[in-house]
């Protein structure tokens, strides 16, 4: 069937025969197509405004049609005004630091829940579960005091610390470890391998997909964190991308430099968007497991 001649028929060719003549699903689909276009408008504007030369004037700023004389001036301006490479470095350091420590904590705890029986298991399980609900953002005030007491105010370590343990990651790894056949481990047990050796040589290598799922959720969520780093970080050169972008936006808003703001936003979100478009399937399946982080 030619998709261009009969687009609707082609799109609905795999639905059950009995429903093929129904109108409602097709109307619903058309509505969703329309909504998707609306959903994309902010992104379209961002690209069009980034490439629009200042000579087009303020009244053309809202046009979604790209300018006929595209320019990279806005990107250059944004790059010069905002300290984006520095912000990007800080964000990368924060995300990597959190992830590395999390890998250790969630692997160990996940193994304990998956393979060991111990006194108080139920109680400790619920303690972990509780963390899913005591959302860290709400605890900014006491955690800021603690970070300050530890002498970590205005440091990247201070930004990372509250996230070093992750209940979500623990449960994810527990699930992955439980799926590994115990026979594999029995061989290692006979060889006298210690718990840590078994985790490192049997459990971790067999659970790489779960690690990558966890990494995706962890990095995206901390890449986007704003309020907590805003409170902990004071020096401009330690700002992560989100805080940097908010300061940058405030400065550029004053001068009505909307093209520069669009360019700055594009610089900030491009890395994640590109990664997503490449690893789409993996991102989507990782996010389904997340829910509460």
């Amino acid at each position: 069937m030619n998709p261009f001649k009969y687009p609707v028929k082609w799109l609905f060719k795999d639905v059950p025969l009995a429903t093929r003549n129904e109108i409602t699903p097709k109307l619903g689909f058309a509505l969703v197509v329309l909504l998707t276009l609306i959903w994309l408008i902010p992104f379209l504007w961002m690209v069009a405004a980034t490439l629009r030369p200042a000579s087009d004037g303020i009244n053309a700023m809202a046009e979604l049609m790209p300018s006929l004389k595209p320019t990279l001036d806005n990107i250059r301006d944004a790059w010069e005004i905002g300290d984006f490479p520095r912000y990007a470095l800080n964000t990368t350091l924060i995300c990597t630091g959190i992830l590395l420590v999390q890998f250790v904590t969630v692997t160990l705890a996940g193994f304990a829940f998956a393979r060991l029986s111990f006194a108080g298991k139920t109680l400790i399980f619920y303690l972990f579960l509780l963390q899913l609900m005591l959302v860290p953002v709400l605890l900014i005030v006491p955690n800021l005091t603690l970070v300050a007491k530890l002498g970590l105010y205005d440091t990247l370590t201070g930004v990372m610390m509250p996230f070093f343990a992750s209940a979500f990651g623990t449960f994810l790894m527990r699930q992955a470890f439980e799926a590994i056949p115990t026979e594999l481990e029995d061989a290692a047990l006979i060889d006298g391998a210690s718990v840590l050796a078994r985790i490192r040589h049997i459990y971790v290598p067999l659970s790489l997909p779960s690690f990558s799922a966890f990494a995706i959720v962890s990095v995206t969520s901390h890449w986007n964190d704003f309020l907590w780093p805003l409170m902990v970080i004071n020096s401009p050169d330690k700002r992560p991308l989100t805080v940097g972008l908010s300061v940058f936006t405030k400065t550029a808003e004053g001068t009505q430099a909307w093209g520069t703001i669009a360019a700055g936003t594009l610089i900030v979100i491009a890395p994640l968007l590109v990664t997503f478009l490449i690893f789409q399937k993996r991102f989507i399946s990782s996010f389904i497991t997340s829910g509460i982080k």
Partner: protein
Amino acid sequence: MRSTFRRGEMSLAEPAALPAAAPAKSRPHVVRRLSAGFKASLPAYLLLLPSLIFLGAFTYGAVGRVIVDALYQRATPRAPSRFVGLDNIAAVLADPAFTGAVVNNLIYAVGTVVPSMALAFLFALALSRTNAVTSALRAALFLPVLIPMVAASALFLFIFLPNVGLLDHYIGRLLPVLPNWLGDPDIALAAIMVITIWKNAGYYMLFFLAGLQAVPEDAMEAAYLDGAGPWPRLRYIILPELRPTFLFVTVIAILNAVTQVDHVFVMTQGGPSNATSLVLFYIYEQAVEHYDVGKASAATLLSLGALMGLTALSFRTLASREGGP
């Protein structure tokens, strides 16, 4: 702990042979069992220790500190703190800025949770089959989920900009008077809600897509055979099957309505005239701008209580989703 255990073990190995075993025998049975249990559990505890240290400091400990801090107050930021009991809580409850923020947050929660879930469900229903077109549409709807709320705010600042902004440029001409989207106290909160809906609908869509995959094939086929139309199928098969998904998404959406409010910080600072001040913003203001840790903690405690009460209702669902104890 260790020595207790050794003695217990000895008494088991050589009962009554040694005089030293006599006191061990009279030792309550429970203690012996507990200590044996502890020894057996020790490896697990050591593995859990790193996680428990950080959870203890930044989650459970934080809740403890909030409770304590809420009971103390300083006259000035440098004055020594003194015990004031429930005064902070009373002061917060009597503060019109707080009650206003609570009311705003309730409106914001209902006004974001309901539409974003309805849209997410519609998206999932329309895109549940997989082909090149639906995959592209899903990806497009998911894009806003990935970007920081701060970046979304930067884009919407222009969209809502009076006169030259995107909305006024395209839609504003149809209206007799151009509204000041972020500057009018009656509209600003709705404008903020639009951003949240735009950003979250694609995320919730994923859960509904996963839920739709799990709807039993034979139930759907039976419905086709019976000639059930799209609405009866939705009403009698799909919606009942997706009940747990709806519950789960409602919980995350409500949590998001309290915690994911970065755009308020960037776009409106709670204004105009507190119209977009939400609870988390109030807490931040008390702590960072007024240095009033007592009041900030009292407000945190109240919101924690409310959220815990709410999530307690779904504790079972959550526990079973994570595999049970």
